[in-house]
């Protein structure tokens, strides 16, 4: 998804990274002062965290995750005993092991020029620390009960605290995201839950598995217990890969209309970016935004079926019958995929007037397309204002006034950042 990111870090991200940095320093210095308890166990989990960090992956929407690393952190935080010997590490030691492992795992990536997303790393560290600080104080009483043969209280507390931790993580992620891409907080929370729920469940189960496994088996079994999660990770990597390729391909192929001289260079890309910004402004959730982006990128694909390019290519100036025909032809092309029905429908209705109540995405594309036809790649504020004024004149009949107002806010923000 084309994130309208400012080049630097947002204030929320900075705050998060600072907090994580302070935690790291506190954890490491405390551990250095009192010494590492159960050093073998700490090193074992630290290595697993580092390996998981090395195998991090990027989920759709540019979200960096490291499931194995997170599960190992959970496992270490939740540890009750290793082969019958009670685990007595303090919460600060858990923080230290986590941060050292994460930094070690990030180093190879840095060496080959792939810097880590600091905010994502900070979030992982904070979530793990939260769990450690909540759980370590109650670890001893839970161990006493479990050692007597009753594991259910420990299991219940683990599950409860993990659920709390995952919720906190989702809230933090949604807060960061709503600031980053300027979407409503409620929408961001739903988006994050949709993204995080399946992987979160797998990570939570594996984290508990790692903690319990150390009871009945030796530490050497640790990698084996990460195996189920590894399968999950492979599956998600494939999924994220195809999602990314899909988007790249549609973005790339939307340019054939430019190469063929049907539209101005960069038109499809600009229309899609503007459409997404408007869609976010109007509170669209991510799956809808994805359809909107595809439709916006391909809104002119019907022109390929025309005998000759329309001079200038600007569809706002072509006669409505012609524009409608292009929309129909484009929808026809997309319908041939047999899968993108929603996208085809959006493209088909992209020039319908408001009275015919086309889908919201079609209304957005219609307005964004007209705006780009009038303004193009220009960044002139007067020209933008004039174009908006013209769209407002047709507001209510041709263009949806709500869309035009959302566009005005988006354009205002964009020209502000450009100045």
């Amino acid at each position: 998804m084309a994130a309208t990111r400012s080049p630097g870090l947002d204030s929320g991200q900075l705050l998060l990274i600072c907090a994580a940095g302070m935690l790291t320093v506190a954890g490491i210095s405390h551990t250095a002062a009192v010494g590492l308890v159960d050093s073998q166990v700490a090193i074992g989990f630290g290595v697993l965290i580092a390996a998981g960090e090395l195998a991090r992956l990027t989920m759709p929407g540019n979200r960096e995750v490291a499931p194995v690393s997170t599960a190992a952190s959970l496992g270490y935080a939740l540890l009750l005993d290793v082969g019958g010997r009670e685990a007595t590490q303090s919460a600060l030691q858990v923080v230290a092991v986590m941060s050292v492992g994460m930094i070690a795992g990030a180093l190879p990536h840095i060496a080959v020029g792939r810097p880590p997303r600091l905010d994502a790393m900070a979030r992982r560290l904070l979530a793990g620390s939260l769990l450690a600080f909540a759980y370590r104080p109650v670890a001893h009483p839970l161990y006493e009960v479990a050692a007597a043969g009753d594991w259910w209280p420990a299991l219940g507390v683990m599950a409860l605290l993990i659920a709390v931790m995952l919720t906190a993580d989702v809230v933090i992620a949604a807060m960061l995201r709503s600031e980053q891409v300027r979407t409503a907080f409620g929408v961001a929370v739903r988006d994050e839950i949709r993204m995080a729920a399946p992987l979160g469940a797998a990570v939570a189960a594996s984290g508990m598995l790692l903690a319990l496994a150390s009871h009945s088996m030796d530490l050497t079994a640790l990698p084996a217990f990460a195996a189920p999660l590894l399968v999950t990770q492979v599956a998600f990597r494939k999924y994220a890969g195809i999602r990314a390729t899909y988007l790249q391909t549609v973005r790339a192929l939307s340019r054939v209309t430019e190469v063929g001289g049907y539209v101005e260079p960069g038109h499809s890309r600009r229309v899609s970016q503007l459409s997404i910004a408007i869609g976010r402004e109007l509170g669209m959730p991510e799956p809808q935004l994805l359809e909107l982006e595809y439709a916006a990128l391909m809104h002119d694909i019907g022109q390929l079926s025309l005998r000759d390019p329309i001079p200038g290519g600007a569809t706002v100036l072509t006669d409505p019958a012609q524009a409608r025909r292009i929309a129909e032809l484009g929808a026809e092309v997309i319908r041939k995929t047999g899968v993108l029905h929603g996208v085809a429908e959006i493209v088909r209705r992209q020039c319908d007037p408001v009275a015919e109540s086309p889908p919201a995405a079609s209304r957005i594309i219609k307005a964004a397309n007209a705006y780009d036809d009038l303004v193009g790649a220009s960044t002139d504020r007067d020209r933008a204002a004039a174009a908006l004024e013209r769209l407002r004149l047709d507001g209510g009949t041709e263009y949806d006034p709500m869309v035009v107002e959302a566009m005005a806010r988006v354009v205002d923000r964009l020209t502000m950042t450009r100045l």
Partner: protein
Amino acid sequence: MRELPWPARIYFVAIIGAAVYLLAHCILAPEWTADIHWPTLLVLGLLFLVCESVPTLLNVPQAAVSVSYSAALAAVVLVGAEGAALVGLMAVLSVRPGLAVVKRLFNGAQFVICGYAAGRAFELAGGVPGLPEITDFPGILVPYGAATAAFVAINVALTAMILLLVGGLGRHQVALRGMVQFLGSYVGYATFGLLIAGLWATVESISTVLVLLPLFVARWALGHYHAEQRSYDATIAALCQAVETKDYYTRGHCTRVSAASGMIAEEIGMGAERLQAIRYAGMLHDVGKLGVPTKVLQKDGDLTEEEYAAIQLHPMRGLEIVRGIDFLDEAFAGIMHHHERVDGKGYPMGLAGAEIPEFARIIAVADAFDSMTSDRAYRKAKPIDVAVGELLKNAGTQFDPIMVSTFIKALSRDGWHPPQTTPAPSDDVVETTAKDHDDPTMPIQVVSER
């Protein structure tokens, strides 16, 4: 049952008979029924059933390895051979929709046999069924390995045999790479079985949830991955066809070049990832053609040098468009160089022989072949043997002889479906071109302007 060939029927009856005998033997053994732990058996049986109902499909369409196999192996450790046989029987009850009764019975019977054999192997190798203690590790690995080996060997043998008898095993499905993947997943699932058994002493049935939840999530993600992949393939094909609609006669060219390139690549033994990459490259190879002015393609007679240069530019244009996609670099090279000639007289760079990337040499053959076997405005489609003769004639000058002979080998086995005879366009909405830059029998003539 009736549609099965008679050797398959005999085999089927024999397997069922063996399974029934084993089950009777188990249930009637008094010393076993005395000390069986029924709740454990019940949970494992249910687990097996759940797993069996959502199989992880591998690349063999008729057979599937499912997570259920971990449950059977866990049963070997926890409740012994007889228990494993009973757990295997649950496959009969699988709620997978559309599964024929014959298949259910066969699956159940063969899992009974596999489970029992694995259990016996476990005991023979020194394992004692029951809750494993901390002190059992890592010593338990030897009998567990023996049980796994017995289970996998018998499972593969029994299943392969029935597939062979039914005649469902094709050439593609027994590729070595597939087998390695197959065995890899078997070993992986075996590990999960041990994890379940190992944790049973601590948290009993919860261990199955903890081990299998990530696997079910993985299965969910893989399902989405496959759906996205199919959707992606359909989309890329539709978009490429949209680029072609302009020229009436070349419609479908991209998909056919993609298929033919795939045939050659498969024949020379390319791995799955490269195979997919060359299919995409074949699909996208002419995407830059839209940048060639229509009047150049429609011009009758010789082209000027300038006009020819416009045609020669299309591979670069294509590359420019697709560069933002995360393909293998080889795919880009294939698109960029698909009009190079082995004798160095091609374009855009005039590479010769082995300098030309492998992908480009493959696409060149596929591209020319489809052009010759399709109708053009200025000629009818050539029969396949004429087109093959033309490829052979130009092997060594225009085409890589190895790719040509490989393609002919693949053609003679898999056959080729040339496009339907294209009726002459009726309305004037569509356009036709007077030349095809891919056609080796009609090289584009260029006149010098001086």
